[in-house]
């Protein structure tokens, strides 16, 4: 017994030895404005992007509101004090001429993508995925635009959308996550630099997965991405967001906002693989990932969030569904893995407003090293949400005895016909499982990887195929190089 326990301990300790694979920076020239935040900076960002006056006004209003707010402290997180005046709020790769084809993409940028294992050409050729590659804060290259345009689908950067489709942006931006929502949403609304805009017209099924790769690149640059997805009546889209970030010593703040509008009979699947730099083994550096993600579902609409969270030093993130329309459906599938000194406080909110609304939550937390991993969820059933149904399953897997795994769900029901169920369990990888796998010839490292992927399978299976493979690799990556 003791021998096994020792052995396991050793292995689990060495899990932390895995260095960050994608820790490199690319040397693209970057144009930045000075550190610090003021109304002038907000106006400057808006001016640099050539935005219409109403957008500038919204940014300024958001900034003024932000000044009245304090950072939230209710999460189970230890967040070092952030000096918001010590952040650069705008960085853009220096504008070159407009790009007409792949050949014109900066060779340095292409090399960066190659290192990440996501060559644009291959993705275009093999998987039919349109990639809107966001390098730092400004969209550099958008592909497949023509194919999408035929269907009337708009997939571009928010800046372009503001220029080319101002009415759509004006109608939907801030409609699901208003700047008054929370501290980081207000900050984002004031200073967001760029992001993606996606509009699927009525009755259109988007023929391919839409994908955006985010990267933090310039040292000390805060990232304030803004994503807006609108699926008009009867439309369908599957949207992928994934990121890997270069290794940095200093902390980087990332406060993105994702808004999704799912109109009547429409469906949106939003999948994320999050692998921001988590800091080193001692917990130095790493990205602070404070994200507000929310979708609004109209009648018969369906919104499905799937996330695999392996990166960031601190994650604060609750992709939510407002089930406003009757018969709408919200889903949340999550794997959150923390190692070393990472902290994650993540979960979802399901707000049932319409009748016969359904929601399902499957959360799989994995904690290793000295990390802290919390699920936080809210299921609210409003008075009028007749026959609403929710089922939540939240599991925690602990690897080693120095980490923490926590579950904080809230159920708030005001309708007697609603049924809300929540279950949570905690487990570890048992000695018996390891012995069984060893006896079949598997190394302990492989066994741990296998068991963890098996534990997360229900969620991984919800990801689009190519993403699922990447996610499995990411989970294995954190468990690699572990056998002593």
């Amino acid at each position, binding site marked *: 017994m003791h021998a096994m326990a020792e052995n396991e301990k050793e292995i689990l300790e060495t899990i932390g030895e895995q260095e960050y694979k994608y820790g490199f920076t690319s040397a693209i020239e970057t144009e930045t404005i000075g550190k610090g935040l003021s109304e002038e900076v907000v106006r400057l960002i808006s001016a640099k992007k050539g935005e219409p006056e109403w957008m500038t006004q919204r940014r300024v209003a958001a900034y003024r509101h932000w000044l009245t707010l304090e950072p939230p402290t209710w999460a*189970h997180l230890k967040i070092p004090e952030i000096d918001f005046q010590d952040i650069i709020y705008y960085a853009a790769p220096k504008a070159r001429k407009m790009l007409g084809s792949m050949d014109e993409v900066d060779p340095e940028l292409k090399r960066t993508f190659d290192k990440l294992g996501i060559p644009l050409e291959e993705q275009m050729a093999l998987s039919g995925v349109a990639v809107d590659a966001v390098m730092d804060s400004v969209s550099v290259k958008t592909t497949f635009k023509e194919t999408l345009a035929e269907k009337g689908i708009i997939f571009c950067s928010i800046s372009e959308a503001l220029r080319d489709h101002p009415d759509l942006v004006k109608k939907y931006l801030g409609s699901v996550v208003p700047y008054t929502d929370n501290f980081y949403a207000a900050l984002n609304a004031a200073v967001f630099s760029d992001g993606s805009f996606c509009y699927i017209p009525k009755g259109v099924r988007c023929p391919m997965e839409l994908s955006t790769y985010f990267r933090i690149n310039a040292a000390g640059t805060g990232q304030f991405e803004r994503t807006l997805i609108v699926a008009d009546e009867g439309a369908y889209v599957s949207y992928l967001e994934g990121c890997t970030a270069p290794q940095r010593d200093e902390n980087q703040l990332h406060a993105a906002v994702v808004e999704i509008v799912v109109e009547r009979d429409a469906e949106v699947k939003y999948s994320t693989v999050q692998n921001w730099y988590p800091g080193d083994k001692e917990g130095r550096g790493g990205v602070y990932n404070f994200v507000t993600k929310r979708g609004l579902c109209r009648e018969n609409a369906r919104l499905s969030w799937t996330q695999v969270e392996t990166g960031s030093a601190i994650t604060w993130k609750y992709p939510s569904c407002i089930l406003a329309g009757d018969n709408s459906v919200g889903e949340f599938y999550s794997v959150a893995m923390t190692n070393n000194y990472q902290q994650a406080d993540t979960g979802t909110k399901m707000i049932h407003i319409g009748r016969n609304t359904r929601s399902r939550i499957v959360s799989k937390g994995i904690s290793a090293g000295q990390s802290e991993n919390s699920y936080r969820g809210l299921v609210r*059933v409003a*008075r009028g949400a007749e026959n609403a149904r929710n089922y939540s399953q939240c599991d*925690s897997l*602990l*690897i*080693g*005895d*120095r*980490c*923490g*795994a*926590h*579950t*904080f*769900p*809230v*159920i*708030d*029901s*005001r*309708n*007697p*016909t*609603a*049924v*809300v*169920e*929540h*279950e*949570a*369990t*905690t487990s*570890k990888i048992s000695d018996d499982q390891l012995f069984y796998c060893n006896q079949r010839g598997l190394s302990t490292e492989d066994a741990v990887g296998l068991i963890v992927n098996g534990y997360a399978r229900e969620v991984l299976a919800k990801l689009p195929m190519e993403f699922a493979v990447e996610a499995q690799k990411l989970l294995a990556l954190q468990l690699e190089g572990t056998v002593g």
Partner: protein
Amino acid sequence: MERILEIIGELRKAGPELLRVEAPVPQTYAAVDPDHLRVELTRGAAAGLVVVHTKAGVVRLDVELGEGAQFDLTEIFLGETFAEVALKQEGRSCCRVTTVELSSANASYRIDLNGAGAENTLNGVFLATEKDHCVVRLHTAHNVPDCTSASCVKGVADDEAVGEFSGLVYVARDAQRTDARQQSRNVLLSERAHIETMPQLEIYADDVKCSHGATVGQMDSDAILYMRQRGLSEAQARALQIEGFVGDIVRRCGVEPLGEALMSLAAEKLER
């Protein structure tokens, strides 16, 4: 209520400030509306205690159980009492708590399992009707290895009542082989009633069995239909169902005739 006080009246009086028990042969004590009662069971002692709260106000109960002590606590809330109960358990001590709220009330339990092999079982019921606001809070701390805790709190909210449950299971670093279970089961009976439940796990040890579950739902309407087909009124059928829902917990309380008396009080409350 009279019936309950009558049953209580036959028991030994505890307090008013201190109940200290050294005897290993269990005896049941009673206290009505104590302000601040301390209960101490020395090593190997055994006792039962029934506390009835009938008045608005803040009440404090401190319980310390020595090694191997056995304690059975029943708390009955009939007035708008705000009760804070702190339970500290040494090794191999065993404590069973039953709490029944038949009026607005706020009962907070802080349970510290401080010695290996300590066991705590807490069962609770609240029946919130009209404009009642019933609250049950639970903080169970597994501070050392090899302790067991199990809790089940069932709530019913009717009319414009509000029911709240919040329960935290805390497992300290190195409190290995902890076995902790928590259940929150709730039924909403009216469109104006409101239930909020927050079961929570905070775990810092890996070799543990911890689980919690929470549900908010309604009574099985097929069963109501079935009973009505056999000639029961809808109100009768519903009352029977609710009785069945909370009955197992209420009847399991420490003193035998008390369970039945509480059930008839509950039935009266539901009929109103």
